[in-house]
């Protein structure tokens, strides 16, 4: 039988039942590997339910530094009798299957091309523990112990990770280490250490941190000066606000008074959440809400108000699989079109597309400046994959010399000094952006009425078609101004001179980098561009123009970003080819390579033809 042999470059998938306490054990595993300075990432694949359904934790160990999701599984830990059939089938030939041998494995689960590792977990547990809850919990740590032995992870490192994990609950340290030991010992006694797969200490981590995108968004909001966070719980955005609340309670409470320099409010629904953000923004506080698809749909009416009445607002859209309730715990990039043109009437909105936790942090903070400068809603488009998985990242940085850009807000002195009449919607600078005032600023000057109905330059209600069109045209001028504030697209691979260009945005980053790394080894050269924002900058158009064929990687069915490109710029659509992935799993390098190479061969693939002709 073939055996997979790999050092520091393999995938372990752990199949668990949710609510069974596996998360903490699995976390010990991945952090032990990282602590040996070998890059490892974990993807958590969980169901939309609280207890009892299948959940997977996929640990990719990669000293080459690949952080993307992958479908190749070299080692499967089977802890879920419901899914064991599927799980075993997934393992690549020559790979390993660890199962609980307390009961014999059914013969139809036996494959001749994989290695079985039998650990009698329940048996050991039942022997060691009386309490059923303990049996359940320690079973998990026990298989981690076995893995430590099988993969030759440093035992002391694993112990240290247990210490770190249970810092707050010191009582749990001892029993966990005991359980680890039990698994470790059993494996040592019955299996080689290491098996064909092994982890060996390296020096590849450096200062890097592990952080999920949602926590990074929260920190970005904290550093960006957000004071009001309103939300309605929805997976996968919930942890943005939870993290904001946690960090704010640590770093935003007045030491003397104990009072909070922030407010987190759970709204009754998403409509209320965005309404609160708009109210706060109108009144000069930096405010945000975090939500996902269904929330975005519900907020539509308010987005139009904020666009038209020009009120700053920040929305973190952590995308999940739509339409409708869809797959609430799976990932997708499919709210692009909806957010870009959200609400009835002629509207356009600014979107930012972070692709790493670092960019989540940066773009979140940036969003508040942009919202204030452009006086409009800013959408930060993350997704479940980026938002809810911990990702190995560079440390976050804040430049203390940086200042918040509050945009054009007139204070009492400025109003006092004003010679002409103040006009809320008067484009004095020619950039389409007008001066606003905050309620209560001045006893007699600068008050105005904010409304979603049509208004003239002085914010007075007006039904004149001229006033209306004048205002709509100015909003177009503002939109052009917005271009210059957007983070520029970045060439990540290549020098821009290849024939083929590849574009990605958001969480496809890691898979795109890996894919182009691989195709380069196949002697296909292509330039890789990351789009970071909508409206698109000229550099994107130049990139497309200067390449013969451009692939756009998207995690949705309908090539939504491609639509924005086609609509907003004069690009021959046959130049653009789509690499689409939309089954709810994070996109993989394999998928990109497959679609990329097969479309390259056919020049225009049947897939794409279908899309074009049928719409």
């Amino acid at each position, binding site marked *: 039988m073939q055996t997979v042999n790999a050092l520091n470059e393999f995938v372990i998938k752990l199949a668990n039942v949710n609510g069974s306490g596996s998360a903490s054990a699995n976390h010990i595993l991945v952090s032990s590997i990282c*602590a040996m*300075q070998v890059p490892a990432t974990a993807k958590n694949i969980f169901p939309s339910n609280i207890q009892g359904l299948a959940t997977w934790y996929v640990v990719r160990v990669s000293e080459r530094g690949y952080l993307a999701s992958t479908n190749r599984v070299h080692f499967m830990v089977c802890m879920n009798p419901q899914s064991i059939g599927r799980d075993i089938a997934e393992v690549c030939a020559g790979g390993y299957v660890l199962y609980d041998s307390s009961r014999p494995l059914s013969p139809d689960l036996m494959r001749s091309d994989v290695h079985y590792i039998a650990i009698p977990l329940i048996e050991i547990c039942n022997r060691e523990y009386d309490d059923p809850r303990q049996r359940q919990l320690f079973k998990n740590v026990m298989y981690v112990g076995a893995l430590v032995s099988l993969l030759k992870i440093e035992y002391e490192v694993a112990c240290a990770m247990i210490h770190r994990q249970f810092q707050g609950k010191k009582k749990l340290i001892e029993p966990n280490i005991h359980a680890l030991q039990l698994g470790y010992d059993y494996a040592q006694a019955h299996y080689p250490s290491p098996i064909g797969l092994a982890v060996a200490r390296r020096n590849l*981590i450096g*200062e*890097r*941190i*592990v*952080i999920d995108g949602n926590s990074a968004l929260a*920190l970005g909001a*904290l550093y960006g*000066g957000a*004071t*009001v966070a*309103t939300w309605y719980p929805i997976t996968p955005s919930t942890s943005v606000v939870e993290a904001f609340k946690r960090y704010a309670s640590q770093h935003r409470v*007045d030491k003397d*008074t*104990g*009072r909070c*320099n*922030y*407010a987190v*409010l759970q*709204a*009754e*629904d998403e*409509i209320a959440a965005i*309404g*609160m953000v708009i*109210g*706060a*923004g*109108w*009144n*000069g*506080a930096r*405010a945000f809400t975090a939500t996902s698809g269904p929330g975005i749909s519900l907020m539509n*009416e*308010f987005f139009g108000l904020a666009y038209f009445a020009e009120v700053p607002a920040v929305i973190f859209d952590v995308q999940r699989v739509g339409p409708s309730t869809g797959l609430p715990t799976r990932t997708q990039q499919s709210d692009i079109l909806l957010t870009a043109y959200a609400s009835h009437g002629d509207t356009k909105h600014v979107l930012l597309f972070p692709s790493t936790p670092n960019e989540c942090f940066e773009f979140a903070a940036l969003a508040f400046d942009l919202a204030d400068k452009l006086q409009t809603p800013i959408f930060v488009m993350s997704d479940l994959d980026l938002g809810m998985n911990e990702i190995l990242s560079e*440390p*976050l*940085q*804040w*430049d*203390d010399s940086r*200042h918040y850009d509050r945009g054009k807000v007139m204070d009492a002195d400025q109003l006092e000094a004003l010679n002409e009449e103040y006009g809320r919607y008067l484009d004095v600078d020619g950039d389409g952006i007008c001066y606003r*005032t*905050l*309620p*209560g*600023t001045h006893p*007699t000057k600068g*008050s*105005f*009425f*904010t*409304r*979603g*109905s049509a208004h003239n330059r002085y914010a*007075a*209600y007006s039904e004149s078609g001229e006033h209306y069109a004048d205002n709509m045209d100015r909003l177009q001028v503002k939109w052009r101004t917005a271009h210059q504030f957007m983070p520029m697209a970045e060439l990540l691979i290549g020098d821009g001179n290849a024939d083929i260009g590849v574009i990605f945005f958001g969480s496809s980053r890691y898979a795109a980098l890996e894919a182009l790394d691989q195709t380069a080894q196949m002697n296909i050269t292509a330039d890789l561009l990351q789009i970071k924002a909508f409206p698109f900058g000229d550099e994107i158009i130049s990139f497309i123009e200067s390449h013969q064929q451009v692939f756009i990687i998207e995690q949705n069915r309908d090539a939504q970003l491609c639509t924005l490109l086609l609509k907003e710029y004069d690009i021959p659509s046959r130049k653009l080819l789509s690499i689409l992935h939309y089954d709810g799993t994070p996109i993989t390098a394999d998928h990109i390579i497959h679609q990329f190479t097969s479309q390259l061969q056919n020049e225009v693939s049947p897939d794409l033809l279908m899309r074009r002709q049928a719409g």
Partner: protein
Amino acid sequence: MTYHLPAFRHPHSPPNSAGHTYRDYEGVISTLCAGCGHDSISAALVQTCYELSIEPHQVAKLSGIGCSSKTPNYFLGYSHGFNAVHGRMPSVATGANLANPNLLYLGVSGDGDTASIGMGQFVHAIRRNLNITYLVENNGCYGLTKGQPSATADHNSPNKSGEINEHISVDLCGLALQLGCGYVARGFSGDKKQLIPLLKGALTYKGFAFVDILSPCVTFNNHAESSKSYDHIRAHAVMMGELDFVPAYEEIVVESAPRKVQRVQLHDGSSVFLYKTGDDDIDLSDATAALNFLRTHIDSGHITTGLLHCNGAGLELHQTLNTSETAFNQLSEKELCPGNQVLQQINHSLSVIR
């Protein structure tokens, strides 16, 4: 609509204690129908704010959509106003209030705006005890869209075109009481004398102060069968008692007349006095009693007006959130941004090998 702006409505109004004349509390000319109840409410608000010597620019006026929601344009021209989307004023007001607790928040809504599309937000703003004066200019119909029945339209009574409304009518005061609202009153646009002290109490109250104001729609719901018509209200109103409002800075002299007097002290020291007029005896601090009173009178076809309930117990939203005294919109970058040093500590706590 009055086509010509009267040159000076109160030519001889002396400046109030804040130095403002009556005129400083007015807004642009109303575009509502001549005789619309809403205009009387605007007038009462002008007088109330004038008499309370409120700084006009320290008021934030918020509303939804509807004839009623248009009115904030017609008073307090020196205040900022926000005409939000239909039914969602409470959330916008909540956000505004979070950003700066130091303004006076005045929400103006209609029965359509509040009791239909806005029901959820209304209920939840009460739940959170948002510090706002929340007025519903209640005409039992959708004025601006031409007279459809609202959720407060009378059960079993015909609208202007003779169609019977068969759905249960929502009593907003009853609802507010049941939800635990701390200040609940009902006024009538046609009775300024009663309305003004109700508004004064509401504006001075710290927390959610709700005033349901019957305000006839002369164009669509002022016919004989409508319980929201001038005639019907005048004929069926039961006053809870006569009201008097004494601001904090005035000396309080409790009238020694034999009439039974209830005094309610508000957070800033102001007082509301209720002089009993009828036989009913209800304790203003007892919401259950108020609810009973209301329900009993509705059953017998009466409309209860006056102050129904006033209770100073609840914490308003900023108190429950324990927010800073400084308004968020005034916090400095130093107070807001924890700085790079703290970030490096955070990095450390997240670092893989530490």
